[in-house]
Each structure stands twice: as C-alpha cells, then as structure tokens.
C-alpha cells in the first residue's frame, strides 16, 4: 500500500511492528506461560523415562535440557505465522510498503522475547533440578541465549514455508530439525565442556556466529517464503 506520506525508516518500521506484536502477545498471558510450562513438563518426563539416579541425570542434563529446548521451539514455532495467514493479516502485511523481511523479523523478535528468551532465563532452575553442576549453569544460560535465537529464526523459516500446507504441522518438524542439528551440537558441547572444566568459550563463539549468521540470512529467507505462501 504505497502512500503519499513519507515512508518510515526501516528501524522505525521494525520497532513499531515489534511493539505491536509484543503487545498482542502480552494480552494473553497463557501464550507466555505455556511454552515455559511445556518445557518444564517435558523435562520431568526424562527422569521418569531414564530413572531418577542423580549422578546419571547430572551427566545427561546438558543433553536433556538442550533437546527439550529444541523440541519446545519446534512446538511453538509451528504456529508462528499460521494464524496471521489464516485470518488474512499476512496478506495485509504484504501490502505494506516495507520489506516483509523487516516486518517478519520484528514479529519473530517479539516472539523470541516471549518464548526463547524467557525459556533461557528459567533454564538454570531446571538445570538445578536435573542436577547440572553449578559450573555449567552460566554456560547453559549463555548457550541457550544464543541458541534460541537460531532455533526461533529457523523455526520461523519453517513456519513460513509450511503455512499454506494443510496439516503442515509435522512437515515443519521434518524441515527444521536437520537445520537445528549444529545448534544442538554446539550448545550441548559447550555446556558439557563447562561442566568438565574445559573451555566452553570456543563453542559459545561458534554458537554466536551461527546466531549472527541466521540473523542476517533467515529474515530474507522468511520474507521470500512468506511471499511464496501468499502466492500459491
């Protein structure tokens, strides 16, 4: 929708869209609480499945926490653009005179703040419950902070690619799990290194590079994918 009004700067557009989306998330506290609760519940499944032995759980805890974070991001991102697509908001967004990449990135950022970031903040609690040694907690926090950025962006890409496909829920998982594998490996290795007294920094640096890379590439890919979904 080209307008006679002077166009906003991309930063202003991003900010506005971010605030809008953030506000609409805030109106339903369930949307904020549910991912955290899901994370919590799935984590409790592991001791039940693998046995309560504290020593063994402690050695497994980096892997468990990271796998569950990945699964939580899978479940959450499935719905990222779906409702926007179904109710027609997405086609309206596509008509705005700003690149979809920017507006989509704004939505994803708000979404990350409400899910991935919060999940990162509470993760030490679950680390303690699983008996993760104290040396690993900080690394867990940092690795999840960087890692959830990647997970959310990749999940958003998958969501953008599959919104137009009826019953796309599981297809989405298939698309994005392989893309998430490096994140998972770097993340768990970093935490495990920290616990064993090695140096997690190099792994965290790799994760940081991944996060930066996806921040640059993913929005463009998401914009293109949303266009395709609207066109078909």
């Amino acid at each position, binding site marked *: 929708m080209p307008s006679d009004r002077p166009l906003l700067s991309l930063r202003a557009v991003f900010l506005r869209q971010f605030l809008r989306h953030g506000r609409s998330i805030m109106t339903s506290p369930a949307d904020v609480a549910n991912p955290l609760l899901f994370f919590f519940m799935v984590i409790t499944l592991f001791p039940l499945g693998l046995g309560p032995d504290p020593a063994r759980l402690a050695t497994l805890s980096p892997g468990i926490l990271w796998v569950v974070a990945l699964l939580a991001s899978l479940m959450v991102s499935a719905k990222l653009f779906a409702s926007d697509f179904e*109710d027609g908001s997405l086609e309206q967004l596509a008509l705005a005179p700003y690149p979809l990449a920017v507006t989509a990135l704004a939505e994803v950022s708000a979404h990350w703040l409400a899910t991935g970031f919060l999940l990162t903040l509470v993760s030490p609690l679950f680390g303690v419950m699983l008996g993760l040694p104290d040396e690993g907690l900080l690394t867990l926090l940092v690795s999840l902070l960087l890692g959830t950025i990647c997970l959310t962006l990749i999940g958003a890409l998958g969501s953008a690619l599959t919104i137009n496909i009826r019953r796309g829920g599981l297809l989405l998982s298939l698309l994005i799990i392989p893309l998430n594998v490096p994140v998972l490996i770097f993340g768990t290795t970093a935490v495990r290194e920290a616990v064993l007294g090695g140096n997690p920094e190099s792994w965290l640096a790799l994760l940081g590079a991944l996060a930066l890379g996806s921040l640059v590439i993913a929005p463009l890919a998401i914009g293109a994918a949303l266009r395709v979904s609207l066109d078909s």
Partner: protein
Amino acid sequence: MLLEATQVAIERGDRRLLSGVDLRVTGGEIWQLVGANGVGKTSLLRGLAGVARLGVTGEIRHAGAFLYLGHASALKLGLSAVDNLRWHPASDVTASAGQICEALAAVNLAGYEHRPVGALSAGQQRRVALARLLLSDAPLWLLDEPFTALDVAGCEWLEACVRSHLNGGGATVFTSHQPSRFGTLQQDLDLGHYAV
C-alpha cells in the same frame, strides 16, 4: 488516475483464468467486478492489490495508497474489536481510542467494543472489518464481496459510506453478486468477456 491496469492476465494453479483485462480507475468512480462464480473476481482483485504476484502478468500501477479488504478479514478472533482496529497491518496510520469507538458506533457495534471478535456473529465480524474503511485515509478501496453477511441496514450503511468516499474524491473497486447497487454511479467490469 488512482489505478491503472493494462493487459492483465491471471493464472491460477497452471490454468489461465483471465487475459487482456484493462482497468483505469480515477477518483469519483465505482467499479463493480461482475461475473459468475469461479470466473476470477477474487483472483483479479488480489492481483490488482498485489497480494498475489505469481501468475499475474501485465502492468498494474497505483498512484497513492489503497485499502484492500479480502474474504479473510485480518481480524484476530481472540482480540477485542478495539484491539483489532488499533492499527492496520498494511498502513502507517494508528487510530486513537476515540476514533475507534466512533467507527464502531458508526457500524452499529456500540457496546461490543471489548468483546473478543470471535464471539460476534458473522455480520458483526464483517462490520468490524468494514470499520477499517472509516479509519483509513486511502483514496482507493478494493473490496471483495463487502456486502456478504450484512443485514439490510448494514448494506445501506456501506452504500452511504462508499458514496461519501466518492464525494471526497476517492474511488472503489468491489465485487458482489447483487447487480448495480449504486445505480448509475457505478460501472461494471464484466469478467466474462476476459475469461479464457
């Protein structure tokens, strides 16, 4: 000239629907896209708005802003009418609470401002979507079956609304299966002529 479409052709799913459509819309005009079910009215309107690009060929030029309201009403069913109208995804305009309540009152929804839109009737939901017309300053309106689900009073309100938009120099392109709502004011574009 608010919209200029030259030799537009529309394809959907490997099938060509329309070709050679020419449409020039200037301020003060009402155009109704006419044609049988499945002829391609919705597809053409989406093409004119630029929602769909794949399969749309020909030249489409806009001068100035426009407002597109499709079948899907871009309303979040879990949010209230006020929250839905606060901003429009495609526009930079932000409406104040006063403007929104005025607009909702104009579409006869006073008292329903703070209910979730999902708990409104079909016609009431359509009214919320149409309240966007009052909150926009775009000179061109592209409306896909705007009269659907409206009762008699609602249809009359919409007619009056389009008329006053016209008087302000705006223009409207809409689809409907009821012929000639606006009498001599409107021009028909019969898509049957362009069907392939």
